[in-house]
């Protein structure tokens, strides 16, 4: 049974259509990555999945009693709000000390429990967010550009942690990222998004799909050179239409 199943859904953001024709599902234990240029609707899709946004068409079905752990893109904590890591973990549900400590340990943030949130480094902060997401023993862990602002070793270490967690806890992972090469290597399935689902499948398949190349092929040489060398063949079974190159530059 799928954890989340989206059928023929469309999503709007302040009145204008952002995503159309979305069919999506994620099963237990899967790692799925969503990639796409800025403004392609990645965050909108996640918001639709966590329930912050209702589809204007179609349906979003969550499994009965689905436990979601959500790691937001960035969390700005106002400096006027005092907040220790321990207190943060008890929001909104109070958790016992040993549960909090265990979650921090799992997320690789064991020693931070008494620190102020505002005083943490970027990497420490993301690990605390991850620990909080693990508290509910989630069946589905959702990460929205969770490594934004981390350097490469930092984000690589973070993703290793995610893979370990998937192995030990058996939860499905859904993530959005720009760091294509790091993320895609760890994924079971990749979804390439640009206002709709352009193509999806195994990482190697998507990386070499013409639709994906049309979106990311030029202008992002650094990140994608890797794939261009490894997979220099093309598949002919894409969705068969051209993408407006301008979307790449869209904010």
């Amino acid at each position, binding site marked *: 049974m799928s954890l989340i199943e989206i059928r023929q859904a469309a999503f709007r953001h302040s009145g204008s259509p952002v995503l159309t024709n979305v069919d999506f599902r994620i099963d237990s234990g899967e790692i799925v990555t969503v990639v796409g240029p800025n403004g392609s609707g990645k965050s909108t899709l996640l*918001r639709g999945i966590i329930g912050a946004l209702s589809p204007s068409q179609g349906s979003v079905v969550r499994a009965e009693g689905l436990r979601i752990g959500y790691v937001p893109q960035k969390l700005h904590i*106002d400096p006027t*709000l*005092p*907040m*220790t890591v321990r207190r943060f973990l008890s*929001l*909104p*549900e109070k958790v016992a000390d040993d549960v909090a400590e265990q979650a921090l340990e799992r997320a690789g943030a064991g020693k931070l429990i008494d620190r102020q949130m505002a005083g943490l480094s970027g990497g420490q902060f993301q690990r605390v967010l991850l620990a909080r997401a693990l508290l509910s023993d989630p069946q589905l862990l959702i990460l929205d550009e969770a490594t934004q602002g981390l350097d490469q070793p930092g984000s690589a270490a973070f993703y290793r942690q995610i893979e370990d967690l998937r192995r030990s806890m058996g939860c499905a992972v859904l993530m959005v990222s720009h760091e294509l090469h790091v993320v895609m290597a760890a994924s079971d399935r990749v979804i390439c998004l640009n206002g709709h689902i352009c193509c999806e499948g195994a990482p190697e398949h998507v990386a070499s799909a013409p639709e994906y190349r049309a979106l990311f092929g030029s202008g992002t040489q650094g990140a994608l050179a890797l794939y261009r060398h490894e997979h220099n063949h093309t598949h002919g079974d894409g969705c068969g239409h051209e993408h407006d190159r301008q979307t790449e530059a869209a904010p």
Partner: protein
Amino acid sequence: MSFLDDFLVRAALAGLGVALAAAPLGCFVVWRRMAYFGDATAHASILGVALALALDLPVFGGVLLVALLMAVTVSAVTGRGYGMDTMLGVMAHSALAFGLVAVSFVPGVRIDLMAYLFGDILAVSKYDLMVIWGGSAMVLGLLWWRWNALLTATLNPDLAYAAGIDPRREQLVLTLALALVVAVAIKVVGVLLIAAMLIIPAATARPFASTPERMTLAAGAVGGVSALGGLQISFSADLPTGPAIVCLAAVLFVLSNLGKALIGR
């Protein structure tokens, strides 16, 4: 008959009642950067005073109604072409102006406008006291009930959604609490100084607090000390009471920050 017959006792209880409700709400006002929002709601409430007097209704009811309308309208209109601060500026000051004009139309009564602008804590009646403590209890109850949800929504709206909390609903809870505090505080510190009772105790508590709860408790203590101390000072030095309360809170704010600068870092 009872100790409530002493006007000073009534004043002290009124000040304490307002301070205890304003402090925790003030923390949210500070955390969510709603300071101007609180100010605007308070200013607009003078229109409520005018309407209540004109229609011969209780002032508390009139103020509550206008404060609520103001807060809900601003929440609803914001983001449609104007920034929040612009909308607040337009609505708060026009409501204040309309209120002042409307007051001049109230026939036959020469109402003491100063009493509503700056408060008249020494004239608090037993009935006022009942209204103040009733309103404060409702505000505290509301905040107690929604506490964790409010904190989560304050941290991040999407975090709240993922936990099954609707941040818009929590915003409405705060708006309601704000209108209630404005309505009960008008008698004590007046329209112009309500925002001070919200913000200054919370800001004073910030440097020494490590969790939201401690900040709230400390803010309550600062507010209570300011109310009682301000009343004491105003009585012995013959100063206007509302401003004296706010002055004392401001002095505590300076001391708190000086203390932090000397101890910490």
